[in-house]
């Protein structure tokens, strides 16, 4: 009975949504509830919608998304830890007509790769940086990240981040927005349908800006890490809204080369 109903339902004329072909069929290696999968999907959907699969090259980082190239059905390179912006610099300069992006986590982009991030932004390279900020090192097992909030528990700040001892979290997105080479800087999230839509518009805008070679675009996606935070996915999203967003407020930070007045 149920099977007959399903067969009746699964028809081309009933199709309202389909996974983009710019994602591979490989099962995601991310934890259930993690924002990476959604972030991957919307970036690949934009590539699909713009029809630029054959002109796009992505750079995967070291971190949870080290295997991003398994899921993104485009040519990709895997970078040494933190060095993706250097690789992207070379690629974009050698192939200025192509769409080049890096996909990096907080440890990769804001700790070990700080120099590469800042200098690529300051030079005004014409590629796009996707920065997934979940305030923790997911892949290595939940250690403190440069973006870990004060008081937040991680395996290397087991009693909470003591800023006197461990230093302050780094708002690198606000920092790079100050640089003349940064043209479009925004902070988004992917935990609700409305946030997904906003983020997707930002991704599209960033890719389109690459055509006009005006400078770097950086999209921070504040995301969850329910495994690292030791929460259920729903708890993690609530915790993110209550704790991460006040510290990392969502919204545009720099648009068309101008800082957004708050």
């Amino acid at each position: 009975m149920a099977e007959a109903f399903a067969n009746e339902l699964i028809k081309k004329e009933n199709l309202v949504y389909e996974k983009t072909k710019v994602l591979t069929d490989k099962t995601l290696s991310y934890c259930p509830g993690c924002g990476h999968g959604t972030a991957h999907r919307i970036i690949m959907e934009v590539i699909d919608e713009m029809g630029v699969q054959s002109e796009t090259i992505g750079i995967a980082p070291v971190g949870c998304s080290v295997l991003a190239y398994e899921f993104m059905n485009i040519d990709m390179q895997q970078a040494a830890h933190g060095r993706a912006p250097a690789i992207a610099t070379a690629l974009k300069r050698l192939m200025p007509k192509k769409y080049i992006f890096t996909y990096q986590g907080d440890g990769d982009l804001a700790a070990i790769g700080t120099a590469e991030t800042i200098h690529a932004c300051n030079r005004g390279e014409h590629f796009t940086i996707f920065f997934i900020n979940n305030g923790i090192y997911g892949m290595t097992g939940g250690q403190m990240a440069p973006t870990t909030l004060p008081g937040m528990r991680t395996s290397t700040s087991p009693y909470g981040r003591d800023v006197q001892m461990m230093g302050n979290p780094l708002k690198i997105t606000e920092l790079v927005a100050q640089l003349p080479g940064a043209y479009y800087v925004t902070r988004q999230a992917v935990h609700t349908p409305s946030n997904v839509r906003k983020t997707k518009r930002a991704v599209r805008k960033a890719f389109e800006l690459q055509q006009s070679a005006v400078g770097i675009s950086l999209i921070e996606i504040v995301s969850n890490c329910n495994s690292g935070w030791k929460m259920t996915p729903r708890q993690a999203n609530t915790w993110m809204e209550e704790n991460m967003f006040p510290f990392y407020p969502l919204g545009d930070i720099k648009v068309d080369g101008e800082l957004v007045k708050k």
Partner: protein
Amino acid sequence: MKELRLMKGNEAIAEAAIRAGADAYFGYPITPQSEVLEYLMSEKPHERTGMVVLQAESEIAAINMVYGGAAAGRRVMTSSSSPGISLKQEGISYLAGSQLPGLILNVTRGGPGLGTIQPSQADYFQATKGGGHGDYKLLVLAPSSVQEMADFAKLGFELAFKYRNPVMILSDGMIGQMMEKVEMFPQQARLTEEEIIKKYPWVTTGKTPDRERNIITSLILDPAEQERHNFRLQKKYKDMQENEVRFETFDCDDAEYLFVAFGSTARICQKSVQLARKKGIKVGLLRPITLFPFPSKIIEKLAHQVKGILSVEMNAGQMVEDVRLAVGGDIKVDHFGRMGGIIPMPDEIVTALKNKIIGG
């Protein structure tokens, strides 16, 4: 019409890189190799050939830019001197692991640490035994003249792409800073993207509908697959040993003793050969041009002819280990070296031969 110029080694390799059709150079200043970047910037290669030249924020960024460009099938080069080359080791290991071609010039200076800015050959182990982490080898060319600095830029790119492996030109402050007559080869066209895609099907230039996506990575989490990858790399290094050994001999036909020296030290030893022969000492010189693959077979052969071998190096004794391995222990092999940026003089090398090999 020959195009003869008087150039520093550092300038010659920069000019030669442009002419060899290099697509990009990424570097960071450090003495004694800063002239490479300076020369390139002054030559405006973006106007001459469309070549990209960029001063990176660090040696680390520069080698990763090489990685990015090489993964798109481009002829990309970087240069530095010893401390900077140490910083590049992570990137070089990634290049080797990802099987990417890239040209790395080390204009060596004395170490360890910040050391001195004067010439040294103390990076021999680092260059020939891997340098970074993991089981890998670079193909290492050791120029001993300004002409070779130019010629090896071209050869280096060719070998890097032939083997999909990084190639290092191991020079030193003496070759980099000295000027000699150079005959420049004519400008070679840069490959177009169409040519690159045709020649190198592995490049990440964008996944077209006619092929699967290309991925450049050194991450292989499955141990069995990683081991298979290691075997493939080892096979490549073996092929290099069979096909790419290069060396030069001087006055070896009647030699009773032998100097083995590379790079600038080999030049000094040529004078030492002349001085020694004036004194009736029949000594010859073997100059390895490739340090990996090392010319072991010719050394083994000469070891049957001569009574003793002196390995002359500007270090505490590094290449001498490879010489000893090649010889196999039948005759006396010793090392003479100066360190800290001191260049050994032709006469003190002859004295060392007398003391360490002939009299010893």
